[in-house]
């Protein structure tokens, strides 16, 4: 328990009562993340504004055996930022400054609380491009790095990990240390920066990040491709990849999810002629260049049963499609009473089998299951919906559905999470999925960084 005396200590340390919340002053949001399945109230919240403040908080907490959990916007889906062992939450959202744009090294240095949408806007104003593009644009970059978020451009550009050059972090005992640098190559010892990326705040707290940028592609064109059914659509994806035409994104979507998005957004999707769609996005310097890229993909789709190919070549057209795509998660959430998600990733050649499996599973477990995702990188977002089920029925059916899906993903050579992370909610499934030796090594790494197990305890394994 954090006592009044400790609270006073933090109040003195921070010197701003609006940034130190205690007991009843802590708003409910700090007890859960976006999905809300994991719930636990912190005892104290510090809204930090500098690495030095975070360092001082961690140092005190370390000396007094108080758990500390870092939190960004709280848009996670697996409870990674929920303080399951109580203690202190360090909220980094006030650390939202752009520190440097280095156009000679093509990097941007930011504080961890900068939002993804702010980051992309800022760099694009300078004709530069931060490629990772997770759907949740109000997530912080610190959160994105902590989960190694992927997003919709992973097919061509990779994931967050591929764009982190340098991290300044605070270790659990309060030491501030920098890993990596503004360097393109690095063979200098173990890559500790890469260990921090995706560690979900269990090894250190990110206080500054230098990110790699690319020149901004001048033009993008999306192709919305209607198919008679989802199976035909997804089976086309490996052929597109094999043709080496490299779209930035290959998404799949079904009519029912599109309809949910339409009613959620109150605006219509530009086509309703098909049960299933692939959505391909290409980028380049001009329309002509991009037309050259997509010609091959278009032919493949038509040969494999596409009904037509719709071309979205302007910002207005893109908006009608991608706004709907971006709203899928919220729209599905809006269509039911409660839900839980699976974020499995399988080899791209197995996506079709995984999707079909989750469809058939609806009948078997007796719950609605909706699915959309990144067909191009094998990362599927599958949602099990509670609807009218009682709490008891829901728990049982959810557990059955999860067991089945994770087992299937494993049998298809997949992994538990493509981009949302393990957090608290998926621990059991990671344990089942990974080689025990790998888990043992992870525990060892955690111990080196955090021998007292105080930083975001109870997560991942």
């Amino acid at each position, binding site marked *: 328990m954090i006592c009044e005396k400790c609270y006073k200590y933090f109040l003195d340390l921070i010197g701003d009562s609006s940034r130190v919340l205690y007991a009843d002053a802590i708003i409910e949001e700090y007890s859960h993340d976006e999905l809300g399945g994991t719930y636990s109230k912190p005892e104290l919240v510090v809204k930090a504004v500098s690495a030095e403040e975070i360092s001082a908080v961690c140092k005190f907490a370390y000396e007094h055996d108080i758990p500390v959990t870092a939190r960004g916007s709280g848009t996670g889906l697996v409870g990674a930022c929920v303080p399951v062992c109580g203690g202190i939450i360090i909220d980094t959202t006030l650390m939202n400054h752009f520190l440097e744009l280095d156009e000679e090294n093509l990097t941007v240095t930011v504080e961890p609380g900068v939002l993804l949408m702010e980051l992309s806007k800022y760099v694009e104003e300078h004709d530069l491009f931060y490629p990772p593009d997770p759907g949740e644009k109000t997530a912080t970059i610190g959160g994105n790095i902590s989960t190694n978020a992927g997003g919709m451009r992973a097919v061509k550009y990779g994931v967050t990990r591929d764009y982190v050059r340098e991290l300044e972090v605070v270790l659990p005992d309060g030491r501030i240390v920098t890993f990596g640098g503004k360097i393109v190559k690095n063979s200098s010892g173990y890559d500790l920066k890469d260990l921090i990326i995706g560690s979900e705040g269990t090894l250190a707290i990110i206080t500054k990040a230098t990110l790699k940028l690319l020149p901004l592609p001048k*033009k993008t064109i999306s*192709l*919305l491709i209607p198919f008679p059914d989802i199976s035909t659509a997804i089976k086309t994806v490996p052929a597109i990849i094999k043709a080496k035409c490299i779209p930035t994104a290959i998404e799949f979507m079904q009519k029912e999810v599109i309809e949910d998005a339409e009613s959620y957004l109150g*605006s*219509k*999707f*530009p*086509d309703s002629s098909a049960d299933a769609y692939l959505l391909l996005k290409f980028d380049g310097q*001009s*329309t002509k260049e991009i037309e050259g890229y997509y010609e091959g993909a*278009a032919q493949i789709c*038509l040969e494999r049963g596409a009904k*037509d*190919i*719709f*071309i*979205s*070549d*302007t*910002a*207005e*057209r893109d908006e*009608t499609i991608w706004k709907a795509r971006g709203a899928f998660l919220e729209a599905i959430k809006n269509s039911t009473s409660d839900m839980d998600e699976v974020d499995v990733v399988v080899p791209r050649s197995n996506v079709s089998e995984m999707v079909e499996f989750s469809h058939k599973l609806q009948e078997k477990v007796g719950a609605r299951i909706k699915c959309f995702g990144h067909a191009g990188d094998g990362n599927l977002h599958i949602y099990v919906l509670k609807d009218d089920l009682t709490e008891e029925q829901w728990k049982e059916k959810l557990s059955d559905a999860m067991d089945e899906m994770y087992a299937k993903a494993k049998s298809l050579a997949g992994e538990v999470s493509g981009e949302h992370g393990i957090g608290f909610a998926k621990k059991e499934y990671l344990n089942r999925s990974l080689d025990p030796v790998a888990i043992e090594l992870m525990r060892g790494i955690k111990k080196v960084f955090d021998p007292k197990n105080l930083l975001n305890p109870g997560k991942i394994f």
Partner: protein
Amino acid sequence: MNIIVCIKQVPDTNKVEVDPITGVLKRNGVESKMNPYDLYAIETALRIKEEKGGTVTVITMGPPQAEAVIRESYSLGADAGMLLTDRAFAGADVLATSKAISGGIDLIGDYDLIICGKQSTDGDTAQVGPEISEWLKLPSVTNVTAVHEITDTTITVTRELPEATEKLMLTFPCLISVEKDICIPRLPSYLKKQATKDREIRFVTLKDLRDNSPEGYGLNGSPTQVQRIFPPSVNDDREMWKGDGSEMSEKIAAKLKELKFI
């Protein structure tokens, strides 16, 4: 039912830069696109055609490369297209533009309905549509937000005015300008694009028009004098408020009233 849709090619950017010395828009390196408002006009026409049969013909004025917006109309489902292109048409204001387009429409002949988008994103005047109807002596209705019943001789539409909503019946031939969001425009079809890639586009120059004396066209026929072009000022004022739900809701309501949004 023969429908003519007026379209325009505009710069594909919302950040057109103005040369601070000459005051001229910098169009170099900026790609072009169909005026987004015209997509609603084309969609309205295609939906009427799908219901009633007939043809959709698009007409535009511009340099030869404006052919691209006619090709795009073909990939949306338009049947024919006319491009008015001539040095003599260059520098036209709304009056000279509407005169030239009316001349083109006169050449197409045999039409029931002309549909325009609300306005263009580069000129923003919203006047070319009504002025075409003046040249052609047709009834016209702007701000159309819905198309209702269509008979062999009439069309019934809704128009939204600032203080009133009107339901109006017009007799063919007539002209309507449709609002954004009257419908969601379809996307260009790759199959239609392939199928129409050799389809003819009718190129029209000044000498082809019935009234072909150069005085009425282009810069010569434009009473509008542009004195200065300058970028609009950008307002990114922000206010941050803190407070609980009821305080904030009152504050927001008061602010919206002050700004006359409600």
